[in-house]
């Protein structure tokens, strides 16, 4: 459905997107994840035909974004981050205008405007002035505008930015619903959002693809589970050494004291909880916690952002 090959986009000397390639099959839902300035918006703008690529090719449904731009644009519903709407118009007028831009007949525009407004839960505000709507309501109207042409591909740039938690949940639920019928490409720097909506994740960092796969794949490949152990402090010296001596254990790092307890993170291959438990029992250590910590997308994201960031840790996942 969407094919991006060696896409590069420069703004003067600045390289915003650097040799990015990926494919989307029909019906796939993909989340772009990355810190601000990673190239998410630029990639989306190239895809929607707003910005021409500096190098590489991008095609949607077999149409090239540069040479057959109008064909591509007719297949994409796009909600930019700024949620552009004419503030002086009423909600339904904005939707009718979108219908006419897409070459729909008057009656068809009106019918679809009713349908999409119902869908985003704004039917009762159809006659409101857009300028008087709240941010969350405008966001939903923007989504309705993107949906009106019934596009094959929905491109949503930070669809929940600036919303309160309740509105965010609502928009997420809506996107999950929409994703059942069409391709959705969603960008966000908020992790739970991507986790909740997108089976497949592309992590962008500094204009490059840092990771691409389903959540399970990414967690399996890049994440590492570990065992967390908390013991009463001072029970015994040389706990770390004893833990390391267990078969399969690669490292046992002391994580410092919390009150009367001392914490360890133990990494290695195979099932570790059981031998550690038996060791504790044998030594008579007082255990407060013994648990397997599974990796999350968040830990992977943080690692990628930090690893690829030579200097600052703070600006990594801003």
């Amino acid at each position, binding site marked *: 459905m969407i094919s991006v090959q060696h896409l590069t986009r420069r703004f003067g000397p600045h390289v915003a997107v650097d040799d990015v390639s990926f494919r989307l099959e029909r019906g796939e839902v993909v989340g772009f994840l990355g810190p601000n300035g990673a190239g998410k918006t630029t990639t989306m703008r190239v895809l929607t035909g707003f*910005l021409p690529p500096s190098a590489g090719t991008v095609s949607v449904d077999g149409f090239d974004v540069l040479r057959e731009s109008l064909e591509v*644009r*007719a297949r994409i519903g796009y909600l930019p981050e*700024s949620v552009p709407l*004419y503030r*002086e118009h009423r909600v339904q007028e904005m939707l009718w*205008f979108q219908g*006419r*831009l897409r070459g729909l007949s008057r009656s068809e525009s009106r019918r679809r405007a009713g349908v999409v407004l119902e869908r985003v839960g704004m039917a009762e505000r159809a006659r409101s002035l857009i300028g008087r709507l709240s941010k969350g309501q405008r966001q939903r109207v923007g989504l309705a505008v993107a949906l009106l042409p019934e596009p094959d591909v929905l491109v949503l740039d930070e669809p929940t930015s600036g919303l309160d938690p309740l509105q965010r949940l609502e928009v997420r639920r809506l996107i999950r619903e929409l994703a059942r019928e069409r391709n959705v490409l969603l960008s966000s720097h908020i992790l739970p959002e991507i986790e909740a909506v997108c089976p497949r994740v592309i992590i962008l960092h500094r204009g490059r693809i840092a990771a691409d796969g389903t959540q399970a794949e990414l967690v399996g490949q890049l994440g590492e589970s570990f065992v967390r152990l908390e013991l009463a402090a001072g029970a015994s010296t040389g706990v770390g050494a004893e833990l390391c001596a267990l078969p399969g254990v690669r490292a046992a790092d002391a994580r410092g004291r919390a009150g009367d307890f001392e914490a360890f993170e133990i990494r290695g291959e195979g099932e570790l909880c059981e031998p550690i438990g038996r060791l504790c029992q044998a030594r008579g250590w007082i255990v407060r916690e013994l648990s397997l910590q599974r990796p999350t997308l968040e830990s992977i994201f943080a690692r990628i952002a930090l690893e690829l960031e030579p200097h600052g840790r703070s600006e990594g996942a801003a």
Partner: protein
Amino acid sequence: MKGLGAIFRRELAGLFLAPLAWILLFLVLLYQAYFFLLVLAAKGGEVNGSLVFILGGGLPFWLLLLVLPALLTMRMISEESRSGLLEFLLTSPVSDAAVVVGKALAVTTFFALAWASAFLFALLVQALGASVDWGLVLTAWIGATLASAFYSALGLVSSALFSTPLLAAFMTILANIALYALPMLARAWRGPTGELLGRVLERVDVLAHYQGSFVSGALDTAHVAFFLAWTAAALFLATRAVESRRWLG
């Protein structure tokens, strides 16, 4: 052009949903009425000459054209670029040219309406017993609308080139002043290259072309073509400037 009608209607609605267009329309009506009566009195009741005076025969009309198109077009591209609406339009399945031409048509329609005030004055004086040469008034109105289309297109070029509406308006007005003043200067200046320079400037001498035809009641195709060609050239430039915004991002 696909989508042209939709954009034209949206822009026209946008103009009249903002107070600026209504205020300008009202001021134009007062301004035109004032000069109509002033000239009517000065010419001793010569109705047709006075009507033509406010439709391009006299300097007050050109003063309006110096400022109004700049004010109406200044926001159309520069501000939409900031608010993201340009991104919305340029990712719709319509060409850049349709976006630019739709906007130009909307502003031109506004001017066609504003200049139609002359018909109102004509009807009034006819009701009072004067004989109005309707052909002459209609020709002048067509000319006034054509000239407005040209200046609106220039305004759009400026709005597409500059990032803030105010700067865009300022540059449009500067360009308009140059368009008025250069041919006048060339006529006054008799240097060794005066001949050639004069002939070049003749090609862009809006006032001469206007006053050579429309105010005399002759709808001369050469002069109509002059305005249409320059308007088309300006629209082409504006489209290119919009396109360049894509490349610059």
